[in-house]
């Protein structure tokens, strides 16, 4: 049972959630869940997408109201019916989608959550408080800049500062590592460790088993809205946790290296000396020479912000080449429109599906039709063949082993479902070249395996894949060839069997290159 503590049962839990039940139309998101957190503890809440992790913590934070159950703070029952109540109980939360307001400055965003904000703002005092705390926990960020100009990692620092300054003693972090580069994850765990030493209770939601084993003191696994098990770090290992998450052990896909390539085959994609011009904090590509041949997966490794996004964008045509040539399928398409590029058979899985791949207020089915409207248009464009779209989508969902609602608006989908929707849409129609940015980000283990399988299948069918990822393990498992980007340049090209994660990691951080 979850209420057995490795710290000894003499201590009362800081927060104890008892028999929490919450139903949404059609789903029991939380079914009589018991969950405890102690002071100076990092308690990981593990589970695949839809297991009920987010719902549980949102109840704790007062964002949702539980249908049944109790919450005890230091052994005394409390009623948390709104985020305001939660804040009064010193509970703070960093949401998966950050709640910072881009148009406000860092200081204003933090001030919004200060508990004793005077009616007339004292900006100097607010800056001082931010700086003092950011020194202590190595969360360096300039209080005066607008949040719009910050990177994801910096925004997360602001979110954490915001919680600390709002006197939160119980910190809830909903999948904090999802959007972070590997070195940022390490830095985050260092911060969390420091906070734990200072007596904070931390609830960490994730579906990455490795991270849990790295930093948590205790792990509670949820499956289908119930507690599947709760155990201290010392008793946990990868196999055990995965078994708890899925009820059985999973096997990863076998990539199966592709045979030696026939050099005479023309490349699907060829970039010759491509350069881009970047604005502000963006990275420009410099002298990129790259070829992708049919039937190969080219992995792109790099710490985020080193030109990966630009590389994907330039192939699709979202940004322009300032110099150099882009040849697709032997044709010079340097200045072609995205429509032309897509029609030639290029598929694109962008890094952020909600903002880049979906129209939030349109239904999933409508979103599925968006990239191929020319294919489904009838009567010269006055009619759309929804029947055909639906049967295509259902057919593809069957093939990939994904399922998601078709008539819900896209904005109602979870991050994982959106990613599934994007993958099905982009890979369903036998593309010749696939650009996949972080295709497994936000997916649970099972879906990630299916997504990888889909990429491998596409490759075996003769498509070329440009796989952009930060997950080195994924890159090594899938790629036939690996390139490393650093500062907008290709700083290394390998066959995965000829190198190792250490070498690639080194190049990713720019350690061995003369940086210009």
């Amino acid at each position: 049972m979850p209420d057995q503590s490795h710290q000894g049962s003499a201590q009362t839990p800081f927060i104890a959630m008892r028999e929490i039940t919450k139903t949404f139309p059609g789903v029991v998101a939380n079914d009589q869940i018991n969950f405890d957190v102690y002071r100076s503890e990092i308690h990981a809440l593990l589970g695949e997408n839809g297991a009920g992790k987010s719902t549980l913590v949102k109840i704790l934070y007062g964002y949702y109201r539980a249908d049944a159950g109790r919450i005890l703070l230091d052994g005394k029952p409390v009623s948390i019916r709104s985020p305001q109540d939660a804040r009064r109980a010193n509970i703070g939360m960093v949401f998966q989608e950050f709640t910072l307001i881009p148009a406000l400055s860092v200081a204003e965003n933090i001030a919004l959550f200060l508990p004793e904000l005077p009616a007339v703002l004292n900006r100097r005092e607010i800056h001082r408080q931010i700086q003092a705390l950011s020194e202590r926990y190595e969360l360096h960020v300039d209080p005066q800049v607008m949040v719009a100009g910050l990177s994801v990692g910096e925004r997360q620092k602001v979110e954490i500062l915001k919680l600390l300054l709002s006197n939160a003693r119980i910190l809830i972090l909903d999948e904090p590592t999802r959007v972070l580069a590997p070195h940022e994850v390490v830095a985050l765990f260092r911060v969390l460790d420091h906070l734990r030493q200072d007596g904070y209770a931390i609830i960490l939601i994730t579906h990455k088993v490795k991270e849990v084993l790295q930093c948590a003191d205790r792990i509670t696994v949820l499956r289908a809205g119930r507690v599947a098990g709760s155990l201290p770090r010392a008793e946990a290992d990868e196999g055990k946790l995965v078994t708890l998450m899925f009820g059985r052990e999973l096997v990863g896909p076998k990539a199966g290296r592709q045979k030696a390539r026939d050099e005479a085959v023309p490349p699907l994609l060829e970039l010759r000396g491509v350069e881009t011009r970047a604005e502000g904090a963006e990275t420009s590509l410099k002298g990129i020479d790259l070829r992708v041949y049919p039937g190969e997966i080219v992995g792109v490794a790099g710490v985020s912000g080193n030109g990966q996004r630009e590389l994907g964008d330039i192939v699709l045509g979202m940004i322009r080449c300032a110099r150099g040539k882009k040849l697709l399928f032997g044709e010079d398409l340097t200045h072609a429109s995205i429509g032309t590029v897509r029609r030639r058979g290029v598929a694109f899985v962008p890094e952020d599906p909600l903002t880049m791949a979906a129209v939030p207020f349109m239904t999933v089915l409508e979103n599925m039709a968006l990239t191929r409207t020319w294919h489904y248009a009838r009567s010269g464009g006055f009619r759309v063949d929804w029947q055909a779209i639906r049967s295509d989508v259902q057919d593809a969902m069957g093939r990939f082993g994904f399922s998601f609602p078709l008539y819900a608006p896209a904005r109602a989908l979870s991050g994982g479902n959106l990613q599934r929707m994007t993958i099905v849409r982009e890979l369903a129609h036998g593309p010749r070249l696939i650009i996949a940015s972080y295709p497994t980000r936000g997916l649970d283990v099972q879906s990630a395996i299916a997504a990888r399988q889909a990429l491998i299948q596409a490759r075996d069918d003769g498509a070329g894949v440009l796989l952009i990822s930060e997950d080195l393990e994924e890159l090594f498992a899938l790629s036939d060839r690996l390139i490393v980007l650093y500062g907008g340049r290709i700083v290394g090209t390998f066959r995965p069997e000829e190198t190792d994660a250490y070498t690639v990691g080194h190049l990713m951080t720019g350690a061995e290159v003369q940086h210009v």
Partner: protein
Amino acid sequence: MTLLSVLGVISSAIFSGTSLLYTTLGEVITERSGIVNLGLEGVLLVSASTGFAVASLTGNPYLGVLAAALAGGLMNLILGYLVVTRRGNQLASGLALMFFGFGLSALIGKPYVGAKIKGLPRILLPGLQELPRLYASLFRFDLLIYLVIPAAVLVWWLLFRTRWGLGLRAVGESADTAFASGRNPWLIRYQALFVGGLLAGLGAAHLSIAYAMNWTEYMTAGRGFIAVALVIFSKWHPLRAIVGALLFSAAVAFQLLLQSSGIKVSPFLLDTIPYLLTLLVLIIWGGTRKHAAPASLGRVYHGTE
């Protein structure tokens, strides 16, 4: 063109710009909280007629100003009920409010058409006592004119230097975040609408009680809509609204001067000058990310389960 006519344009720009600026300031507050008030025209009319009626009944122009401001606040609260509580569409609700305002103001103002009132007293701009009488008469302003620039600064201070303003801007950018920070987005939007309505009411009061000193049906002549445009023009910033309101009013005064100078251009064409100017400035300024509209402008806040 004589010095007198130039000064005349400036004076007239200040007189007609004042009501526009108050209204724009009010709309800046409302829009910063995430609500577009397309019914502003109707709000102005109801305020102007109510203020005029009270001034005429009591003989006290200041009571008229107060009544106009309150009427503006109440009219905006009607919009609040529609778009905040009933979660109606802002554009449709705004237009309905406007037509309601047309009718209501005609009803309120009917008995007072042609009535004479004691307008707000005018005081000569300090330091201009030496001016010849003809010139000096151009610079005798009423209290509302003297207060309009301080009002703009006050609105800026409220929005950018107080806790209330921070919360209000947060609601306009992301009501969810504001809610998560422990604020009540619905209440804040009501407050913003009420304060915005008070300011619009002051603008209307200046129009009927201080400037025109009479009531005629539809006397606002599109000022409500111009104010909505000026909010965009000023990029939701109260201090830039000063420039916008003065520029627009100066353009109106200038084209009137041109018409009266007997220039051989169709008066209808001249009438379009201020609007062309507005379009031109909007084109030149364009939309930059830094001064874009509040992110949840026009969005209904539904709350959570």
